[in-house]
């Protein structure tokens, strides 16, 4: 595994020397998107709690960071590095509050409540239009970087750091407890694990990374808009993680890259070439349904199984 990681990292590092700038821009955004996907995997794949409101925290991080670094809106001009951390912190604080209320209950309440969170937070943008800028959002000032090259490398660094942190978490004793909660809550509890505490911890961590990713998007695109709260983004995250394979981190990472590049690069072109009477969302949702039914374990497990089988022969 180690040489694959190294090769991928080297490939990502030399990408700017091969690719034209326009594609580099998309790749950088794909890295930030991957942070959203792997952090979702931490909650759903490792801890087994169905979080349907991940974009709530992406949006929260984005708006908090954008407001803190745009003096035109709030009169506050924080350093973007501080505002990005603040975005993550705000997201995890909201995650903590919601987690404490919903995660002490077993079963379906968490999924139900998180499913409606993005729809609710989306409305805040319209209710306090003066502050949040309504559907158009607003331009963000004092951004961290200006050139595409800088942005690309910074997103890559954030992805690598987030990935290593999450890998360390899931490999640690805490990660083992997350998985114990996922596999059997009763059993975990009988072993003396405070399941509620670990579920809430996982939710706070996952929200933190989502908030950071949201704040990164704002600093990357120089604008903030309510689509960051959106359900389509949520489904894109779910699709990437499910396609890659839940509970593996590597699978969702690869899934995120493939899906993001597909959506922003090839898919639109293919549909236009054949002039199909559909939009790319329909194709993605259909793929998600198909993957969910036919291959619920995801590509990672599928490939691993084949690999093991072929090695035995």
């Amino acid at each position, binding site marked *: 595994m180690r040489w694959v990681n190294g090769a991928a990292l080297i490939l990502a590092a030399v990408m700017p020397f091969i690719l034209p700038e326009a594609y580099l821009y998309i790749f950088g955004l794909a890295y930030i998107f991957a942070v959203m996907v792997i952090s979702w995997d931490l909650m*759903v794949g490792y801890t*087994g709690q*169905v979080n*349907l409101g991940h974009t709530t925290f992406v949006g929260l991080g984005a708006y908090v960071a954008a407001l803190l670094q745009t003096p035109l809106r709030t009169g506050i001009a924080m350093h973007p590095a501080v505002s990005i951390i603040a975005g993550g912190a705000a997201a995890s604080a909201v995650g903590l509050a919601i987690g404490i*209320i*919903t995660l002490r*209950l*077993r*079963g*379906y*309440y968490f*999924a*139900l*409540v998180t*499913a*409606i*969170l993005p*729809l*609710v937070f989306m*409305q*805040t943008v*319209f*209710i306090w239009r003066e502050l949040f800028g309504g559907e158009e959002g607003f331009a963000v000032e004092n951004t961290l970087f200006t050139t595409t090259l800088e942005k690309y490398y910074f997103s890559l660094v954030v992805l690598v750091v987030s990935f290593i942190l999450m890998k360390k978490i899931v490999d640690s004793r805490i990660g083992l407890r997350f998985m114990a909660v996922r596999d059997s809550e009763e059993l975990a509890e009988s072993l003396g694990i405070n399941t509620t505490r670990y579920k809430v911890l996982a939710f706070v961590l996952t929200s933190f990374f989502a908030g950071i990713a949201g704040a990164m998007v704002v600093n990357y695109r120089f604008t903030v808009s309510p689509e960051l709260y959106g*359900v*389509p983004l949520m*489904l894109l995250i*779910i*699709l990437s993680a*499910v396609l890659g394979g*839940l509970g593996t981190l590597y699978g969702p990472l690869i899934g995120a890259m493939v899906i993001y590049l597909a959506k922003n690069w090839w898919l639109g072109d293919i549909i236009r070439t054949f002039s199909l*009477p*559909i*939009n790319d*969302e*329909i194709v993605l*949702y*259909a793929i*998600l*349904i198909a993957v*969910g*039914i036919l291959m*619920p374990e995801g590509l990672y497990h599928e490939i691993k199984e084949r690999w093991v089988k072929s090695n035995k022969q």
Partner: protein
Amino acid sequence: MIETLIKIFLFGAVVGGIWGLVASGFSLIFGVSRILNFAHGAAFVSSAFLAYALVNEGYSLYFAVSAGLMLAAVIGVVVYALTKPVRDREVMVIIVTLAFALLVQQVLLVLFGDRGVSIEPFVEGVAEIGGVKVTHMRLLSLALAVICLTALEVFITKTNLGKKVMATAQDSRAAMMVGIDIEKIFLFVMVLSSLLAGFAGILYAQIFAVNPEVSLRALIYAFAIVILGGLGSLRGSIAASFIVGYILVITITFLGARWSEFVMLLTIVAILVVKPTGLFGVEE
């Protein structure tokens, strides 16, 4: 003042009746097959849109409504087929039904655009009750909703098939052992619930306007209702739907429609903090 009160009283009941049709089906599906059907709103909007399209094409209203209901039933069958292979995986059931709901929403967006559409009402005319003008259609929809919900309650508690449904909801394995074909019951409940949602969608489109986005919005109200009434409790969700209807109408009257999602979330959070099992729920 008194007029505002009458208005809230009447309109809250109308809205409550419509969401009651949606939420009772949602609750029934969950109670019987432990499936959280995120695609429940899809039956609601698609039947309304099909009826709208057929009326526009010049077909009679009643034909259009029947066709809309047929489509809702078909969506019920599709959801049954989609969830059957993944029923043991809670995560996948949610993901597949949510994806299907969004798929339907996008198809409707491509076909009809994102503006709201209304269907010609069953009855025209306006009645005046205590100085408040109410369209006959609103009163009729309340009456129809109450009739449907009562019929559902009677069906579940009194008829043979209804008792089989109840038995499956209480313990599907035991139901299987006494010779109930639970697959048939699952399919039947899915179709019945989708029909109720489809009918609610048609009534809603005759009073207000539907757009494809309502498919997800409807879920917020359905969730608030089933959590307030207690997950899986049919009677609870019927009672809760009227409470939620009143909360909705009061919010819209005094704060504006933008706040309705917010207030729904606060309602849900308040219930989860104070009484997580809901008003009529049972401990699992």
